[in-house]
């Protein structure tokens, strides 16, 4: 029941916000986001309503983890948003569905809806929408291929996750491999098609879709292929983020680099899976700090430097610790070369991010942005320094302390994804 409300209430609010003037719509947006986070927190505290086994909506450990990340990220980014409240609320509803859906078709629909909502946001042009369409198509093909693989044994085709996991041991390998590759590619393109603040939220929802297909691959005995593909994709994402890092694309590229690290971690398996899921949490917190501190005012200048360091993965912030854990797991599992490559790429990502973000560094084009601000659209409302400071403090705290409840959830999610604590 709670779960259904978490999906339905933002959708209803989105419809309700359509005719409202921007200021009122923004209040609805912030109110809806707060309600949503309240519901998610209630689920943590122990409110029933996570769904029963076999139902199309059920919150398992990975879903719960990413629903929490999406909800928290959403509230903190929505605070600064003036325009497009209905679109934002629709995105929240769709991503909640993606996290809670136990049916691959449902997850695909949800992620596709979220992608369309995000790709229609103002800064994105026609190319983004084309890209989104391509990604959605590829993801659909991937999902269907998994369905075809499942139909090899039984005539009745079901795309529900439990049914797929049951049927997995007898699936033909080629279909599963192709399906997973297409799903991964499609979700990756969908993440890339969204403009900056939305892409970080969307990435977490799309990641759930990828992880669901990954679960099927594991059950079908295609672990080696799926892991290799995830690692390759992770490095590709890291490389793209490093190559494209610029002042204007900072938030999107920071998100992409960390998505790469998460993907590599899940691909490596073992304790790296736990570390990668922890990194998803840590990075969401640090990214929020970066987003909130990124308002081009001198008052938050020092805070912004701290936020850049946190988001880039400098010690002693939480992303550093989780990156170190991924690296350590890789080395301990014998993948020394992969670990070294990861460490080097992360160091490069740090440098490009610092170069792009800190105006005092050479080559960051501080003067050009100063002149360009004259004909920019009006800046989004600022959030003062309290919110970014709190986010930075949270990023620091997670680096030294892991709440036991979160640790248990991460361990159980890692267990479902073929890893361990």
């Amino acid at each position, binding site marked *: 029941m709670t779960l259904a409300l978490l999906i339905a209430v933002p959708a209803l609010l989105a419809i309700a916000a359509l005719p409202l003037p921007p200021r009122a719509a923004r209040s609805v947006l912030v109110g809806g986001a707060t309600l949503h986070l309240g519901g998610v927190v209630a689920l943590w505290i122990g409110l029933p309503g996570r769904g029963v086994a076999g139902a199309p909506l059920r919150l398992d450990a990975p879903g719960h983890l990413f629903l929490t990340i999406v909800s928290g990220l959403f509230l903190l980014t929505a605070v600064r948003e003036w325009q497009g409240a209905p679109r934002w609320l629709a995105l929240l509803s769709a991503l909640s569905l993606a996290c809670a859906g136990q049916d691959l078709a449902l997850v695909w629909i949800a992620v596709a809806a979220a992608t369309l909502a995000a790709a229609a946001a103002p800064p994105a042009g026609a190319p983004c929408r084309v890209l989104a369409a391509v990604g959605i198509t590829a993801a659909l093909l991937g999902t269907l291929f998994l369905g075809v693989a499942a139909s090899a044994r039984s005539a009745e085709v079901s795309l529900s996750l439990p049914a797929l996991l049951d049927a997995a041991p007898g699936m033909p390998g080629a279909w599963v491999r192709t399906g997973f590759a297409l799903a991964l590619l499609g979700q990756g393109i969908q993440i890339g098609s969204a403009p900056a603040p939305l892409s970080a939220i969307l990435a977490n929802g799309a990641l759930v879709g990828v992880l669901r297909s990954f679960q099927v691959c594991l059950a079908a005995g295609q672990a080696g292929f799926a892991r290799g593909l995830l690692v390759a994709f992770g490095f590709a994402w890291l490389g793209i983020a490093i190559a494209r890092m610029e002042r204007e694309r900072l938030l999107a590229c920071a998100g992409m680099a960390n998505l790469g690290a998460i993907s590599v971690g899940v691909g490596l398996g073992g304790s790296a899976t736990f570390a990668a899921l922890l990194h998803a949490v840590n990075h969401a917190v640090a990214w929020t700090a970066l987003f909130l501190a990124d308002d081009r005012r001198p008052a938050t200048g020092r805070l912004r430097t701290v936020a850049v360091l946190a988001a880039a993965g400098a010690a002693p912030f939480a992303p550093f610790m989780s990156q170190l854990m991924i690296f350590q797991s890789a080395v301990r599992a014998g993948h020394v070369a992969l670990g070294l490559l990861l460490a080097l790429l992360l160091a490069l990502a740090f440098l490009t991010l610092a170069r792009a973000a800190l105006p005092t560094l050479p080559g960051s084009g501080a003067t050009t942005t100063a002149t360009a601000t004259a004909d920019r659209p009006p800046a989004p409302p600022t959030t003062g320094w309290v919110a970014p400071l709190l986010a930075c403090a949270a990023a620091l705290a997670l680096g030294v302390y*892991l709440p036991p409840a979160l640790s248990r959830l991460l361990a159980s999610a890692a267990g479902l994804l073929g890893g361990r604590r």
Partner: protein
Amino acid sequence: MVLALLLGAGAVHAVCGALAPLVARAPRAARLVGAGVALASAVGAGAAAWALAAGVDPAPLALTWPLPIGEVAVGVDALSASFLLAVHVVTALAAMSGAAAPLVAAAAALVFLARDGVLLLVGWEVVSLAGGFRGDRRLAGLAIAQLGTVPLLLGFALLAGRSGDYAFTSFAAALPERGLAGTGFVLAVVGFGAGAVFWLVHAWRARGRAAAAIAAVATPAAIYGGLRVVGFLGGPPSWPVAALAGGLLAAAALLVAALVSRAPAVRLAWRDRRAPPLPYRAPATVAVVAAAAALAWILGGTPPPAAGAAIASWSGLLLLALALADLYLLAASGPAACAGALVIQGVALAALPLALALGPPGARTVATAAGALALNAAILPWLALRALGAGGAPLPAEPVGRKAIRVLVGSLLVALWFYLARGLVAAGLSAVALGLLVLASRRGAAVRVVGTAMLVNGAFPFAVALGRGELALLLDVLAVLSLWGIALRRAETSTS
């Protein structure tokens, strides 16, 4: 009690660093508070050292850490306490003159007190990042700080992969008692050694007192890290004796330099909040390190060295310094930077025969070392400085990409030579190769002086390997005679 005192000092530093931006509008009060805190920490560290000397043996402290990696394990021994005291004194002096760096001091305290690899890495990362941020070339500083941590990360991860966790006691137990000590160990030593050389050069070149103060903290931290890792091998190392001698030398050089020439310049710089002039910075940093090492020796009462491993590690570090300075010369552009790197090379070369001597060095060895110190560490760098224009005009600007390619090619050459050969021969060959690379790839007559000096320095390890160090000195004299003309002509043309 001792440990709590030291941890408290570090924590207060960290809080001060975190609050510093808030009191930026009241600089006088901030400076007073900063200096007070730094002084109090220095006194606390002194008290801790005194307690250690009196025979108090503080129990290490270990807390369980909810993260599944590393643990919060801290402890203090003579080595830690001495470095802490030295760094706190430097920080207090810097804070009194308005160049406080409390966050760096706190992170350095974490480095010194950590008894766990992850904790040490976190502290070191903060120290090097802060230094990279403060430097005059921030991006390059950050790049070196980040990429320099990679060998450390890999080294510690390899060690932990073997020992099961990151605790220092496990590291020590995992290393074999004799023979080769594992790739992880070597990587960790190389990482800290490279850090020490980098920060020493940085101390030499730093502009502004804050940067100089950070370099003066970061250099001891890197050296401490290297010593701590070498300590995993077990057995008392021979470093305190050599460090004591080096420290006395450096302090004497500092004193002489201050007395002879530019005492007013020092005072002026101090008043105007600039970095102290060139000749004072690096010796001062060396003196800090040496004082810490000597104190550790006195506190710990370590017996004389058990030759073998310690000597091998010493000469290895010297050869590493030689190679790193060569690589640095491939990219350096300021005259002072080039000369500084040549001085470091010269000092490393002079120490080489002493480090290789089994037992007490003979008169010939000492003479060779003294000659190298005079020729390679003083006259050749001075000539290079003259040739490049002591006024400070940098070499013609070059695109960064070309520098990067040159350094990459240089690194590959060094790796190739160390793969093909071992020890002294490999170091000599790589130094010669890099000298040729400088001669071939950099423009300007003045750079030829630097390249030739690198070639000459490369010949020195060969001669030492053959036991004929005096031949190398002869080559030095010939090189000085032939370069003299270039250097002086250059100086004349630049003045006319």
